[in-house]
């Protein structure tokens, strides 16, 4: 039988292992990475049907056996940066079995659940199945190539062939293949044209001028004029075509990045500042746009010029060509060294720039708070400090970026001195087939040749700078999007029965946000979710909204796993009203019709009426055409809340979720909102998070959440009779309300 383990069993304890498991192998193992004395090392827990064996150097003989019949409870104690596997004994006291980092915390949790389940008399095979699932979830390796995946369900970059950065960006150029080909042909043409004048000059110096042939001179000048007209006309056309192609390419990329950003899971935004995302969509794509324009407009021309001149120079005189190429290896080597030196610096510069953007996106929308706390000076000081840091980093970059290209240009210029010396010597010594005209042509070609060399030598700077931006963009493009496993799976309708089975969830491995949630909400139930701040109420709602997918256990709607239902359809069936509703910079009408673009005017009016919003909107001078400022400025908190309820009405959802919808409004507005909510929730499954328990008077079920667990669940009457946490909360609030009433009466008197 296969033994599940997160890592191979430590060799250090192999003798003890062989000794203990001589006859029978363990069911599964949890291999830790810390010793009990907090040093990196190895330890292991082996679980059998009747005991757990802990292997650690601190235990006598290297291991310790604890039978399940001795254990009252097994627990993983998460601390700061490490965790221990503890067992609480029936006879009292606690035994610390092993220590590990958070890398092994999830599988250790599964081990603790296994022991506790067995103690509670649960089915061993079922418990082992749950353990197996946890282990499988941990194994994030590509089944094809065996490489480690960034997360359990992620696509393998190796097998998808996505590893090459240039390849990824090239896909945006694919639709413009034809245009780019035309541009390239035009580039070849203009380059060929540009190579004619030096040849003609040489001919004039060697033949026309010594023969004093005026007619030939005029013919040559007219020929040159014709070449110039043709060259610059075609060049203008090429520039225009390339510019348009480059712009379309970049717009395509911006659209794609924005779309990806929209489909990234909430966990991405938990870890990445919005400022940094905005910087990537705007700043970094602009950087790539400049690069693309530089590549498509200059690099192509310079490349063809380089090749063309090299061919002509070789035809004119191969010896002199070799002399003129002397500086090239040095230029290439220095360019490479320069790239290595400046690349990391550009990355640091990017980070400093992103910090400034993040600061701006924090402080500019929060200008009211800054003013209210007269914190303008501190905000300016912080901004200045960030800019100074950027400047400091930029000065490092500027030093490297100035010295190296200048040095390379110097090397390249030295090449022309070599041509003058060697070519001049050939002319002076009267070498066969070498004339003054040829030298003049050669010097002209050489000066043209060094331009592209110079261009490519300095190109490394632009390339490295763009590379830093490209990597940041790939962060979004490669990030794992929200998984829509049930795409296209649209049930006829959602009735509204919600079941949560053994749900566990943590934002990161250091702390569990929800533990062992089991809850059944029947269709049409009005459920009040109560608990202190930080108890896990909103997290529970976030899971039901499918903002996070990486939870353990199952969430079912009408008996179907929500992961198997088309995500867009599923979310469209839920009306979500938040404590601080977000308004978009648009008209009141469009804010209500958000998400229902084809809504009829009267549908919107009706929704506003149900939400008790129609009254105040009709009193606005511009009615439904009132343009709201950013975040809804122009409306009061209660008015914004009613607009958001109207928005929920428009969706006609099967399930309604209110997250502290009346927390931030006065009692009169609360009454209006409450009235609107009561109209809206009729016949719909409703979940309401509320601090003010009075707002839950319609609830037929109350769920009390504390420290990520459901501690009480039942009808309000049942919970009051239980005299538990809910009862206490009701007592505290009614005392508070009475006091408030008394105070109000005293003030009136």
């Amino acid at each position, binding site marked *: 039988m296969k033994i599940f383990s997160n890592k191979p069993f430590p060799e250090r304890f192999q003798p003890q292992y062989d000794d203990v498991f001589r006859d029978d192998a363990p069911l599964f193992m949890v291999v830790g990475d810390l010793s009990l004395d907090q040093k990196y090392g190895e330890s292991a827990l082996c679980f059998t049907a009747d005991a757990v064996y802990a292997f650690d150097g601190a235990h006598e003989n290297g291991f310790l056996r604890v039978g399940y019949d001795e254990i009252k409870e097994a627990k993983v104690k998460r*601390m*700061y940066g490490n965790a221990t596997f503890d067992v609480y004994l029936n006879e009292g006291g606690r035994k610390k079995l092993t220590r590990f980092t958070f890398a092994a915390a999830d599988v250790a949790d599964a081990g603790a659940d296994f022991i506790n389940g067995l103690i509670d008399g649960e089915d061993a095979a079922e418990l082992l199945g749950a353990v197996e699932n946890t282990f499988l979830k941990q194994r994030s390796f590509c089944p094809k190539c065996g490489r480690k995946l960034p997360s359990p369900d992620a696509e393998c970059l190796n097998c998808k062939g996505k590893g090459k950065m240039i390849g990824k960006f090239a896909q945006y150029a694919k639709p413009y293949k034809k245009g780019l080909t035309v541009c390239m042909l035009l580039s070849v043409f203009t380059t060929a044209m540009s190579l004619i004048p030096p040849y003609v000059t040489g001919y004039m110096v060697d033949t026309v001028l010594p023969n004093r042939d005026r007619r030939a001179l005029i013919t040559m000048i007219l020929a040159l004029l014709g070449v110039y007209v043709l060259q610059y006309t075609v060049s203008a056309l090429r520039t225009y075509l390339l510019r348009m192609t480059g712009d379309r390419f970049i717009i395509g990329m911006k659209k794609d990045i924005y779309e990806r950003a929209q489909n990234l899971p909430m966990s991405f935004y938990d870890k990445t500042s919005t400022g940094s995302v905005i910087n990537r969509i705007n700043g970094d794509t602009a950087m790539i746009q400049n690069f693309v324009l530089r590549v498509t407009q200059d690099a192509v021309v310079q490349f063809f010029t380089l090749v063309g001149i090299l061919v002509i120079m070789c035809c004119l005189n191969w010896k002199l060509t070799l002399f003129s190429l002397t500086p090239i290896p040095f230029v290439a080597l220095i360019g490479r060294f320069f790239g290595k030196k400046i*690349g990391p610096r550009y990355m640091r510069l990017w*980070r400093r720039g992103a910090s400034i953007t993040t600061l701006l996106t924090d402080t500019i929308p929060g200008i009211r708070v800054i003013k209210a706390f007269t914190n303008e000076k501190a905000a300016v000081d912080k901004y200045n400090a960030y800019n100074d840091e950027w400047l400091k980093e930029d000065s490092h970059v500027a030093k490297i970026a100035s010295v190296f290209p200048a040095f390379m240009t110097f090397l390249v210029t030295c090449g022309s001195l070599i041509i003058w010396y060697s070519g001049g010597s050939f002319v002076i010594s009267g070498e066969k087939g070498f004339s003054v005209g040829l030298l003049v042509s050669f010097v002209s070609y050489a000066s043209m040749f060094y331009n592209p060399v110079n261009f490519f030598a300095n190109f490394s700077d632009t390339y490295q700078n763009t590379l830093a931006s490209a990597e940041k963009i790939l*962060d979004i493009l490669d990030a794992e999007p929200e998984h829509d496993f049930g795409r296209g799976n649209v049930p006829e309708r959602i009735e509204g029965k919600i079941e949560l089975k053994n749900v566990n969830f943590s934002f990161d491995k250091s702390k569990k946000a929800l533990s062992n949630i089991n809850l059944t909400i029947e269709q049409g139930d009005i459920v009040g979710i109560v608990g202190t701040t930080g108890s896990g109420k909103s997290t529970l709602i976030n899971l039901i909204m499918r903002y996070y997918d990486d939870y353990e256990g199952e969430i079912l709607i009408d008996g179907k796993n929500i992961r198997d239902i088309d995500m867009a359809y599923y979310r469209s069936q839920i009306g979500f009203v938040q404590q601080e509703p977000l308004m978009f910079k648009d008209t009141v009408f469009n804010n209500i019709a958000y998400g229902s673009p084809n809504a009829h005017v009267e549908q919107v009016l009706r929704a506003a009426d149900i939400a008790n919003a129609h009254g105040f909107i009709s009193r606005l001078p511009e009615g439904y055409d009132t343009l709201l400022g950013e975040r809804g400025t122009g409306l009061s908190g209660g008015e914004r809340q009613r607009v958001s309820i109207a928005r929920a009405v428009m969706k006609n959802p099967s399930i309604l979720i209110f997250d502290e919808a009346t927390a931030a409004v006065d009692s009169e507005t609360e009454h209006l909102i409450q009235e609107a909510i009561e109209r809206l929730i009729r016949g719909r499954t409703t979940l309401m998070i509320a601090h003010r328990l009075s707002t839950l008077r319609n609830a037929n079920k109350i769920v009390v959440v504390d420290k990520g667990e459901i501690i009480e669940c039942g009808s309000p009457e049942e919970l009051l009779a239980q005299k538990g946490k809910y009862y206490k909360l009701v007592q505290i609030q009614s005392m508070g309300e009475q006091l408030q009433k008394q105070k109000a009466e005293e003030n009136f008197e």
Partner: protein
Amino acid sequence: MITYIDGPEIRITPNDGIFVDAEFYHTKEKKTGLEPHRLFPRSGANRYIALLDENGDQVAVIRNADNLTPDSQKALTDALNEYYMIPRITKFLKMTEKFKIWMWTAETDKGVITFEIRNHIASVKPLYDGRVLIKDANDNRYEIPDYRQLDKNSRKMLLPKL
């Protein structure tokens, strides 16, 4: 209201690992099984340490552990050392990347460790005083007290990620 403990007005004795017992001289109160938590685990190791009871409710805050009697201080420090683990990186041995997954091997005060970094921007936070805070793919934390003090090779490896 927060109850602050300023100096030797409390006697702390060890209980079990991360737990301590406390005797408050002023109130003659004795509490057992308290869990000390640093309020500023990153910036002030010995200052402002909260004592939490079994429900996670705060009993008192010790303003400065250095002002306690040596015995109490030892009991408190032992419990804190048991709870907190922030390995201090002294040297980088290797940083390798394959398919956008970085594996860093570092020498720390707790021994040598290899950990996974998925995103430099989110996982590596340089502070302006030279400290660098690192969080790996498993949410384990590490600290470089001053990256400028690292050896040349380690700095060379780390620099592009800062």
